[in-house]
């Protein structure tokens, strides 16, 4: 080694910021050292890397999806013929409750959050999500809530009163034991986690965008997650309040829902559905983000109607809070009030219709190439639009009075949820799997996956429209012969099995591709958004150089490479904050190192919540370990010890 090389390395050690003075390899190495999570179990438990947390969320959410899917198969086997005795009424009631609860609280919302956690920082061009330790905490709390619920289910203490748990059936007198308490507390866990993630996403999107990414250049996926997170902030508190009231009624004898002592059974429904309706848009809007991300890449033209799509997102988010009474049309509320909610429920079709048009226009004016992600998007349009149209039927009070609480509604919400969220989700998995793992999923298996899903889904759920109209109510563990429901139920069961086969193909595809899939480069699909500007999978630091954005599809605007900003520290974790509207560089902000305190605080919260199922004193005594955890978390860090040189 020559003296010249040694001195170059020595002087590099004193350079603390990236820029022209630091070579590419050196920058990369030092950033990796600064941003990498420590190896081993300790590092895994204390990681605050949004990509690791996001991957965990996705895997966990898919595990819950599979578990809830197995429950659905059990239900379909029980209902395949009349008067079957595969499941006792008690077991069936637990199973349909767990299926709905798991799918809605433990799969649908968390998986959309998961993709946000992983992708939003990458798409806006920053190095970390806002509040990374809160992010880690939210995952542990979510995991604890889900595990608690499923362990309860295995131990025969699982909830059995439906995923929306109406009182008085879920109340202390008619829901004896602790079953409903576990449900209500699981809601608390998952809503704490969801609120935490929502806050992080809003701050990341508003403050941490790459320079040049003004509001009108934000990718539609990010817009969708911003609107979704805002909805979460307003909707989740309603269900937390109602579930807390239910716990209090059951545990300490309050009378929120006791009409004999001044409460009201309908109060539960109002509070729950005030959350419950926005909840389905919280699930749907990120899926529209998936569609708006995937479609331009495979139609090979930028999305048509960007402004209209953004406005449609806001309109849906806003209107979504004004619809909830359509779940209560038959409860005997005043008719004039019901009419208002009919109008609002119909009106929300307009922004959704606009979105559909913009996507169709993009496809029409583009030059499609039919890879698996696009197949799922096409499937989404076919299925979701049908579900939306059956929703317009449900918005009418007279029609709803006939089909409410029947299999017609089951068909409707599966069309909009599976068609509107799960299909785009699978498209998103096929689209972003190369980015997450560095390998491509098999296209052939993907086509089979799609075909089995599409055929199986329609076979399973289309007959349910008819079943509802000919009188089959929801949530029945068996039905008598002779009502004409037998054939259609058998058909639905067959469809469910085909759908399950599609899931198996998907799992096989993932398993095989993780080991043997084609190695993916940075941008295998030729997409335009920023996450494709870094390697697959991205390095711990996300971007070695923070890019400067000049258009909506940065990689398409600048095919010869993006400009970058320099000046961030390479020896400490540092982010660039930009202004809210125009994304001009504003301040530098430190980002936390890995920490075990989020996990410890989550354990304390878990103990507190689970204890309060059994005794109110758990809130008092459980606060102590929680306080210890939070103190450890927020203990002020000493200021950086190395003073910075004034001139470099």
């Amino acid at each position, binding site marked *: 080694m020559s003296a010249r090389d040694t001195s170059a390395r020595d002087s590099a050690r004193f350079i603390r910021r990236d820029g022209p003075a630091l070579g590419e390899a050196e920058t990369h190495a030092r950033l990796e050292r600064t941003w990498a999570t420590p190896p081993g179990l300790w590092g895994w438990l204390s990681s605050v890397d949004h990509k690791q947390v996001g991957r965990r969320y996705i895997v966990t959410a898919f595990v819950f999806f599979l578990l809830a899917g197995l429950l659905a198969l059990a239900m379909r086997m029980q209902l395949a013929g009349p008067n079957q005795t595969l499941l006792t009424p008690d077991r069936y009631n637990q199973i349909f409750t767990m299926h709905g609860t798991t799918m809605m609280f433990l799969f649908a919302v968390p998986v959309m959050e998961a993709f946000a956690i992983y992708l939003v920082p990458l798409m806006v061009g920053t190095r970390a999500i806002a509040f990374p330790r809160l992010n880690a905490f939210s995952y542990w709390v979510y995991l604890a809530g889900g595990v608690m619920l499923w362990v309860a289910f295995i131990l025969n203490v699982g909830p059995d009163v439906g995923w929306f748990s109406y009182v008085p059936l879920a109340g202390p007198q008619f829901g004896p034991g*602790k079953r409903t308490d576990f449900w209500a507390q699981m809601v608390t866990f998952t809503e704490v986690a969801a609120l935490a993630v929502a806050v992080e996403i809003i701050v990341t999107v508003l403050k941490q965008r790459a320079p040049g990414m003004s509001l009108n250049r934000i990718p539609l996926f990010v817009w969708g997650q911003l609107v979704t997170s805002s909805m979460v902030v307003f909707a989740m508190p309603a269900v937390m309040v109602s579930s807390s009231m239910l716990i209090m009624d059951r545990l300490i004898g309050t*009378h929120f829902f006791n009409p004999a002592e001044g409460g009201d059974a309908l109060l539960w429904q109002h509070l729950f559905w005030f959350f419950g309706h926005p909840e389905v848009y919280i699930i749907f809007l990120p899926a529209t983000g998936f569609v708006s991300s995937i479609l331009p890449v495979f139609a090979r033209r930028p999305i048509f109607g960007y402004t209209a799509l953004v406005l449609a997102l806001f309109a849906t988010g806003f209107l979504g809070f004004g619809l909830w009474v359509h779940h209560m049309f038959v409860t005997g509320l005043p008719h004039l009030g019901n009419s208002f909610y009919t109008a609002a429920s119909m009106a929300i079709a307009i922004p959704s219709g606009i979105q559909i048009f913009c996507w169709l226009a993009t496809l029409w004016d583009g030059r499609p190439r039919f890879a698996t992600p696009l197949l799922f998007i096409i499937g989404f349009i076919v299925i979701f639009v049908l579900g939306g149209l059956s929703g317009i039927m449900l918005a009418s009070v007279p029609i709803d009075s006939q089909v409410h609480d029947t299999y017609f509604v089951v068909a409707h919400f599966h069309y909009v949820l599976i068609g509107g969220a799960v299909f785009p989700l699978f498209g998103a998995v096929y689209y972003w799997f190369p980015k997450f793992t560095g390998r491509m999923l098999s296209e052939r298996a993907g086509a089979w996956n799609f075909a089995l899903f599409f055929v199986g889904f329609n076979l399973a759920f289309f007959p349910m429209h008819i079943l509802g109209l000919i009188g089959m109510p929801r949530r029945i563990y068996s039905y008598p012969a002779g009502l004409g429901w037998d054939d259609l139920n058998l058909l639905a069961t067959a469809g469910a099995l085909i759908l399950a086969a599609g899931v198996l193909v998907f799992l096989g595809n993932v398993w095989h591709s993780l080991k043997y899939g084609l190695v993916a480069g940075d941008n295998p699909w030729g997409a335009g958004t920023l996450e494709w500007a870094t390697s697959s999978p991205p390095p711990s630091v996300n971007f070695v150089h923070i890019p400067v954005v000049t258009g909506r599809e940065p990689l398409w605007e600048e095919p010869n490479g993006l400009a970058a900003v320099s000046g961030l520290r390479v020896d400490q974790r540092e982010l660039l904050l930009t202004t809210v509207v125009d994304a001009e560089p504003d301040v530098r902000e430190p980002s936390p190192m890995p920490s075990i305190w989020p996990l410890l605080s989550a354990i304390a919260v878990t103990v507190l919540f689970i204890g309060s199922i059994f005794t109110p004193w758990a809130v008092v005594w459980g606060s102590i370990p929680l306080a210890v955890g939070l103190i450890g978390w927020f203990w002020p860090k000493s200021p950086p010890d190395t003073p910075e040189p004034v001139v470099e």
Partner: protein
Amino acid sequence: MSSPCRRAVSLLLFAAFALAACDREDREPRGAPVGESGPGATVQGTLYAGEPTPPDPRRQEYEGNAYHISQGKQLYVWFNCGTCHANGGGDIGPPLMDDVWIYGDSLENIFATIVQGRPNGMPSFRNKIPETQIWEIAAYVRSMSGQTPTAASPGRNDSLNAKPAEQRTPKAEPKNSNPGGPGVEGRQ
């Protein structure tokens, strides 16, 4: 997930399955078929030839089971026990939520009282209320004085509440209870 994590998780799942289903939450509408007569029958005296026969353990299922206790509460209302015993405070019949038990406070004793009737006004319900339901009512009566596990005892009524919920009733330790059988509280 790393290999030690995977092992830990699978062990946890196995443990969860291995633990018997939580008996408190069983909903068995038929109830355990434990009859009135036979080796485990209830007695009122304290003397035995040889050793006392242990009570049938299946009866304890009624006492620790939330479903049975809540059914007992419903039956208490339906069969008008309140006409004489009010909501536990007693009227022309003795109170049921205090610590004084004339004929014994154990589950078997209460069962025997309901089945056989008692002097000075307690009717006999033999052949009128099926035995499984009498066990449920007996379990509920015990909950009125706080003797059943808190997690299994009923919460507040979904109607007018004349007293605090049974799960929040402090345990009234039975005293001066005539011993009525083996394993009964109050027995010397």
